[in-house]
Structure formats: C-alpha cells, structure tokens
C-alpha cells in the first residue's frame, strides 16, 4: 500500500527527519548530518522492511504523538521508550501495527536520549542535496517538526515486515565507556593530559546534534593558541582553552581549530549519541 500521511500531533522536545545524511559535500561546507545513533536508525528501517537509507524520525527524549491517515507498520528503536499504538501498549524494538486514523505515542525513554521511529515506506519529504536529514547546524533539510505538520509516507520497501516480535538488545549502560583513539600529534597537550580521564565526565546541558560538551577534570594543554583550521569527523574530541572536552556529533562543522585529543571509536559513537545531559560517562583511550 502506498500514499497516506502522518500528522505530527505533538513533536516532543525535538523531533527531526533523519537518514544516512549527506557525506561527501565538505567542499561545499556541508556537514554529513544523518541519524546520530546510526545502528538504531538502520535497525528501525530493517524491522519494517524498508530500503536502507529511507528517512525515519529521530525523537529526542520522547514526547512524540503522530496520527496515521491509513493503517501502517512502524518500529521504534534507540532509546527504549514506551510505545502506545491506538491506546495499546506495545514493545519497542519490534514491528508495531497502527490502524487507520490511529495515534502512535512515544513516551519518555527510561534511559538514553534518541529514539528512532521508522514508518514502513519511509518519510517521503523532498530530499535536499541527496538526503532528507535535518542539519541543525546549517538549516539544510526539513526544519525540526512542529505540531500540525503533515508528512507524506513513501513506498520505499525492500521486503516484508520482519516476522519477529522484538529484537533483544542489551540495556544502555548507566555510565558508558567511550573509547577514543588518540591523535598522535605531539606538542599540543601536557605530558600528563590523559590523567584527567581517570574520573568520569558529566554531559553538559549544552549538548545537541552538533556536539556534546563534557564537564569534569581539565585536560591540560601544552599551548594556548589555536591550530590552523582542519577537517573534522563525528567523534572528534576537541579541547578548547577551558580544558573541558567537546565531542562532535552528526551535525558537526566541517572544520575547526581547537587541538584534537583523539577520535571516538566507531563502536562507541552510538553510546555517545544516547548519553543524556546530566549523565556521566567515561573516556578511555584505547
């Protein structure tokens, strides 16, 4: 079945459209963007039989209510949030049926920050520069969703809805360990700089899709000047003069000029995307 829409009744604190983003456009000054917790986003699409890279919704701290014009299969992954379809509580991490005219509610997750709602067929808003992702840094792509907005449902399916009830997943750790590969460039940090990582860091409230600020021990720099601007990736750990690290996420600027301590390993990026403001995490150089 094709066509149909979903209406955003309530968007919650921040809900954006996301897919695998728009990598490859650094020469235009465009960030890669895309779903922050990429494996969770991809799992949601697989659960409803979507083609890879079909757009889904990234729901920050829950609170989303959406009404479907026709019956539809959906799946919610990422931060484990209570899911209610037309008044019935459903398990997250599995295909969920929403009847025509039914409301889907995603509550506040017990842990984690970002849940992903995939709709069978995908969210069919027009792509911008090859992606439907909202880039919160540059404003490219659809704006964050607002109440009353109506989104078209597409027909980008690759197979049937997954014939399972739910996917077993390990719970999110209370104090995740984020592994960092050091950038071996001598001269920018004090010899004992890594000692600062012996204690955990607190995720600052000043944290978004662009980057995460951490509060904790000061990472001692060996010099106070800035680097010549250089390219960055999601996971770059920068240390500004305050010594409090900043880790870039999906909507990071293409270049930056603070010294780089290291880069978060790929397997830790999803944990980082799920770390809430106020939560503690550990940085470990591996």
């Amino acid at each position, binding site marked *: 079945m094709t066509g149909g829409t979903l209406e955003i009744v309530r968007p919650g604190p921040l809900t954006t459209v996301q897919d695998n983003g728009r*990598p*490859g*456009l*650094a*020469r*235009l*000054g*465009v960030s*890669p963007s895309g779903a922050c917790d990429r494996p969770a986003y991809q799992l949601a699409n697989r659960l409803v039989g979507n083609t890879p890279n079909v757009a889904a919704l990234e729901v920050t701290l829950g609170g989303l209510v959406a009404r479907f014009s026709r019956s539809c299969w959906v799946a919610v992954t990422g931060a484990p949030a209570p899911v209610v379809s037309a008044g019935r509580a459903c398990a997250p991490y599995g295909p969920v049926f929403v009847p025509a005219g039914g409301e889907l509610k995603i509550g506040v997750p017990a842990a984690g920050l970002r849940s992903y709602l995939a709709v069978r067929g995908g969210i069919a808003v027009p792509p*911008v*520069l090859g992606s439907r992702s909202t880039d919160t840094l*540059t404003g*490219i792509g659809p704006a964050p969703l607002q109440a009353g907005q109506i989104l078209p449902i597409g027909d980008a399916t690759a197979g049937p809805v997954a014939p399972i009830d739910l996917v077993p997943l390990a719970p999110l750790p209370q104090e995740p360990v984020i592994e960092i*590969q050091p*950038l*071996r*460039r001598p001269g920018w940090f004090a010899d004992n700089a890594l000692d600062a990582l012996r204690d955990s860091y607190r995720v600052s409230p000043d944290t978004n899709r662009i980057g995460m600020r951490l509060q904790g021990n000061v990472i001692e720099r060996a010099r106070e000047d800035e680097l*010549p*601007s*250089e*390219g*960055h*990736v999601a*996971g*770059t750990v920068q240390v500004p003069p305050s010594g409090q690290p900043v880790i870039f996420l999906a909507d990071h*600027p*293409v*270049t930056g000029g603070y010294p780089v301590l*290291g*880069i*978060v*390993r*790929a397997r830790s990026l999803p944990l980082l995307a799920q770390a809430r403001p106020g939560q503690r995490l550990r940085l470990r150089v591996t």
Partner: protein
Amino acid sequence: MSLRVLPYGERALLIEVADHHEALALYDDIRREPPAGMVDLVSAAASVLVVLDDEESAAAAAPTLRSRSIPPVDRGVGALVEVPARYDGADLDEVAATLGMSVEEVVRRHETTEYVVAFVGFAPGFAYLTGLDPALHMPRRDVPRTRVPTGSIAIAGEYTAVYPRESPGGWRLLGHTTLEMWDLDREPPALLQPGMRVRFRRVTP
C-alpha cells in the same frame, strides 16, 4: 619525501602539509585519483583530511597516500569569479583607523588582489579566500556580532570571505555583495569551491 599521514580515528587520515597552497594542490590530486572507499575529502588551512567508508579502506589507503608527493603548487588555474562589491561595511572606518590608513587605501588594497579559495567551512558556501594584502591582516573582533547580514564582505587574520547567509560572526565587515554565494537551486549550491580564483570589483551606489 613521503607525506605525513596521521591516522585520524578509525576511518580517516589526516595529511599535514606546510600551508594552504600545498593543501589545495594535494586536495586536487587526491580528488582526481581518490583511494578506494573515500567518502569525503576536506581541504583546510594546512592539512587535507581523507574520510573513508571503513577501517579496512583507511588501513589500505594510508601507505598509498604516504607514498604520494605534493604536486607542484599551481597558482591561478582555477575558474575566476568576479564579485561585485559595495564597500560600505560597518567596520570599514574602524579598520582604516586601526591600520592608520585611509578608507580609500583599505578598499584599494582589498579590491586589487586576486584571491584563491583555500577551503570552505564555518557555514555552507563560506569560502576562506587567501591572498589578502598583509597590510590588512587583523584579528577578529573581540566581541563577535550576533547577526552578520547575508553577503557581507569581511576580513579576519590572513583571510577575506563573503558571508553566504545571515549568521553570527566575528569578522570585520568591509562591505557587501548581492551575488548569491549559496543557492540550493543551483548545482552546486556553493558558488565558490577550493581552488577557484576570486576578484572583488568595486561598484558605487
């Protein structure tokens, strides 16, 4: 001489070079002959970042990139873009006073130079133009503006640039242009890309 290639996380390689001339020459060279699995390439002030699709591609690309050399720096071969400029910027008088020259002198030095796009960053279509007359090198403003209008022509350090759209910014404003630096309906949307040459042409109100 082999290139200095640093593993930059699991999926990227940072190549450090002397300056933006070398970065641009290397950037062009890698764009023409990319390593297998390259997903992005970022030219910057004194480095080129090669982003690959996975750890295996990065491991394979490192030795081949290391064995490359920086091609001869070839200046003035990129396409030339002429930017009509009205020198009416909010900081023009202050820049002239700080540098101890007349406004006319500041404008003359800015508009008689041919610039080269070293890299694009900060915002989509925001091109860092190199070649600024050293007499005009000034640090950013101590307090950045919360709102710099679209099309503002500005200077900071060794660079000049045009703000592609309204944004906060700490550069010193010399004037403005009506030329669209960023237009999503154009292919590519960014008017200026690394290696292009730029001249400002003074227009009078």
